[in-house]
C-alpha cells in the first residue's frame, strides 16, 4: 500500500507530468486564466466607475461569474457556418490552444536542489550542467530559450489557420493584421532574447535566473522591448489590433460561438502567461533565491503579476492602428533592440561571469 502511494507520488510529481499538467501547465493555467479575466474585469470596473462581476458569489467578489460564464458557453450551441469544412472549423481553435500550451512544459519554473526538496529524487534526471542543479521543467533542453520562442511563434500561424478555415472577410482582415504583427513582434522578442543570451553567455533560461543578477537591471532596454513585444504578441491593449472589436467584430474568431469561442479566447491569455513566465525567468530573477516547490510558486507569482499588469492596460489605452503599431515596432523598437544587443555585449563582458 505504502509502495503504491509512493509510486503515485513519484509519478505525479515527476516534472514532465507535474509541469505540463499541474503547474504551471493545464490546471494552474486554467485557474490563473479565470483569475486573470476576473481581475481584468474587476480592475477595469474600478477605474470605470463600475462594479464589475458581482452577483455570482458576492462574497468572493463575483469570482464565480467566470465559471458561470464558462458553463454557459459550454452548453451553448456551436454554430458552424455554411460553406466551411466542419472538421477543420472545429479543429482549428483546438490546435491553436494546444499550440499555445506546449511551451509551458519547457519553461523552467524552479531549480531542484540535490536534497531537501520533494523534487530532489528527480535531481539526476533533470540535471542542468550549466548551473549544477536540477531544473524543474517538463522537458529539460539546454537551449530552452530558443525552443520556447520557436514554439510560441507558431501560434500566429494557427490564428491565420482559424481565419482561413472560417472563410469570413472580417476574419481574413484580422488574420492579415495578425500576420503583419507577428512578423514584427517575433523579431523584437528574438532580438531581446538574443541580447540577454549574449549577456549571460547562455541559451538556458535557468542559468539566467540562477545567476542572481536580475536581467531588468542588467539590461533594462531589452526588458522594455520584450514587454512591449509581449503585449503585441498576446493581443493586449494597446495592441489589440487583430481582434479590434469595433472594426473587425472579433478578427479571426468572428464566426466562432459556444465552447470553440472560449478556446479561441483562451489562446491569447495562455500566450500571455507563457511570455510572462519567460519574462520572469529572464528579467525578474525567476525563483531566485528560492528553489524547489517554493521557488516554483515564486516564479508563478511574479508571472501572474506581469500578466495582471498587462491586462490592466485595457483600462488605460485604446488600440493603435496597425500601421502605427508596425511603425513603432520597426522604426523605434527594432533600433532599440540593437542598443540592447550592445548593452548585452558590454555588460555581459564586464559584469556577468
Amino acid at each position: 500500500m505504502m509502495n503504491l502511494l509512493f509510486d503515485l507520488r513519484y509519478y505525479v510529481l515527476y516534472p514532465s507530468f507535474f509541469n505540463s499538467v499541474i503547474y504551471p501547465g493545464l490546471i494552474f493555467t486554467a485557474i490563473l486564466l479565470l483569475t486573470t479575466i476576473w481581475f481584468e474585469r474587476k480592475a477595469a470596473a474600478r477605474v470605470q466607475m463600475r462594479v464589475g462581476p458581482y452577483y455570482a458569489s458576492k462574497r468572493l467578489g463575483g469570482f464565480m461569474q467566470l465559471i458561470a460564464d464558462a458553463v454557459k458557453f459550454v452548453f451553448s450551441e456551436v454554430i458552424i457556418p455554411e460553406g466551411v469544412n466542419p472538421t477543420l472549423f472545429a479543429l482549428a481553435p483546438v490546435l491553436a490552444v494546444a499550440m499555445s500550451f506546449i511551451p509551458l512544459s519547457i519553461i523552467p519554473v524552479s531549480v531542484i536542489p540535490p536534497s531537501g526538496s520533494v523534487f530532489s529524487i528527480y535531481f539526476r534526471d533533470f540535471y542542468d550542467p550549466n548551473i549544477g542543479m536540477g531544473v524543474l521543467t517538463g522537458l529539460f533542453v539546454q537551449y530552452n530559450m530558443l525552443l520556447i520562442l520557436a514554439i510560441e511563434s507558431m501560434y500566429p500561424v494557427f490564428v491565420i489557420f482559424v481565419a482561413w478555415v472560417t472563410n469570413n472577410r472580417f476574419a481574413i482582415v484580422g488574420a492579415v493584421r495578425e500576420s503583419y504583427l507577428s512578423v514584427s513582434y517575433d523579431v523584437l522578442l528574438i532580438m531581446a532574447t538574443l541580447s540577454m543570451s549574449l549577456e549571460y553567455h547562455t541559451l538556458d533560461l535557468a542559468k539566467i535566473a540562477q545567476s542572481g543578477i536580475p536581467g531588468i537591471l542588467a539590461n533594462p532596454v531589452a526588458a522594455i522591448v520584450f514587454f512591449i513585444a509581449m503585449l503585441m504578441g498576446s493581443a493586449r491593449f494597446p495592441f489589440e489590433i487583430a481582434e479590434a472589436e469595433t472594426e473587425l467584430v472579433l478578427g479571426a474568431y468572428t464566426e466562432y460561438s459556444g465552447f470553440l469561442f472560449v478556446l479561441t479566447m483562451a489562446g491569447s491569455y495562455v500566450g500571455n502567461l507563457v511570455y510572462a513566465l519567460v519574462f520572469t525567468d529572464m528579467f525578474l530573477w525567476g525563483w531566485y533565491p528560492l528553489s524547489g516547490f517554493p521557488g516554483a510558486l515564486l516564479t508563478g507569482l511574479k508571472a501572474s503579476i506581469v500578466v495582471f499588469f498587462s491586462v490592466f492596460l485595457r483600462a488605460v489605452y485604446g488600440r493603435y492602428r496597425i500601421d502605427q503599431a508596425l511603425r513603432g515596432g520597426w522604426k523605434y523598437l527594432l533600433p532599440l533592440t540593437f542598443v540592447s544587443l550592445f548593452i548585452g555585449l558590454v555588460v555581459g563582458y564586464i559584469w556577468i561571469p
Partner: protein
Amino acid sequence: MTDQAEELMKSGGMEIDVIPVSGELNVGPQHPGSGHLRIYVRLNGDIIEEAQVEPGYVHRAVEKLGENRNYIHLIPLVERPAILDSIHMNLGYIMAVEKILGVDVPDRAQYLRSFAAEISRIASHLYGMGILAIFIGHSTGFMWGFGDREVWVQILEALTGARITNSYVIPGGVRRDLTPTIVEMTRKAVTYMRRKIKDWENIFLNNPNVKARLQDVGIMTREQAIEWGAVGPNLRGSGVYYDVRKVEPYAAYSRLDFEIPVYKEGDGYARTLVRFEEIQQSLNILEQIIRDIPEGQILSDRFFKQIPPTRLKKWWEGQRRVVMPGYYASFRPPKGEAVTRVEAGRGELLYYVVSDGSAKPYRLRMITPSYRSIYVMQNLLKGVRYADLVSIYGSLDYFPPEADR
C-alpha cells in the same frame, strides 16, 4: 518606392508582381462598430477606396407622421430621433410653432429653455465622447462618458420628470419651474464636472494612444467643411466660426456670456477638443443661468389665463408646474410657414413648418445635425485606412437614429 524596388529586383534578375488586394466589406448594420447604419466599404489593402453610407435602418417617418398629427401631439414624436438630445429637438419645433402662432415667451421660460438645453448639450457631448472612445478601443472613456452623463440626466429628471424624451418645452413656455433643489444639484454637478474634466484630460485627451488615433485623421479643411455643409462641432473643428446661439440667438442666449471654441486643424482631435471646450462653456452658462434667472411666469400669459383657477392653485402654486391649457388640444395656427434653427448638441438643427390653417402641419421638415453629417462622412471616408473608419465615425459624433428620423 515600390517602383524603385521593382527596378532593383529586375536588375538583380528577379521580378515581383504587385497584386492589388481588394475586396468589399459590409460594415453594418449587424456590426459592433456601425450602429444602425450600413457602410459599404471597398478596400484596397488597408485603404478605403470608396465608402457608401447607407442610413435608414431606424427610419421612423417623422415627417410623414408629422402631417397626420396635431401640433401638440408632435412634441413627443420630434423628440424621438435623438432621445439623448431631446430638449433641442423639442425646442426647435416649438420655436417654429410659436413663430407661426406669434406667441411671446416670458423671460424666465427663456432662461429655463437655455438651462435645459445646455444640460442636454453636456449630456449629448459626453455620450458622443463615450462612443468615440469605445470606437478606438478606449473602454474607460466609454464608461466615463456614460457615467458622467448620468449626473446631467438626473438633473433633467428632477427638472422635467423624465430622464430622456423630456417634452419639457411647450408652446409659450416650459412645463415646470426651477426649484431650489435643482439649483443645488446643478451647483454640485458643475463642480463635479469641472473636476472630472481634469481626469478626462489625463486619461483621454492627453493619452498618446488617443492622440495617435485622432490627430491627422479625417482631416476636413475649412473649404471642405463649408462645401459639404458640416454642422456643429465638426464645422467649428475645421475653423468656421458658426454657432446658431451667436448667429441668431434664441432662448436666453443673447443675454448670456459664452465663447465659441474654434479649432483650425479640422482633424478628429480638433473636433474632440471643441466638444470638450463646449462642455466647459456650457458649465459657465449654467452658472450664469442659476445666478441671473429672473422671477416671473414660465408660460405665456395668453395660455396661462386659460388654465382653470382650481388647477392653477393645485399645480402652479403648489408644485410650480403648469398644466396644459385646453387651447393646446387642437389649435389651428394661421396659414404660414416658419424656418427655425437651434444649435443642438451635434450641430445645427433646422425645422421648416408649413401650416395651411388646419390642426395639423401641412409639411414638417426636420433637418437634424447627423442628417447633414451623412455627406460629410461619406466624403471623409474616401482614401483613409480601414481602421480610421471608426475613428472618423466617432469623431463626427454621427448618431444614426438622429440622421434617419
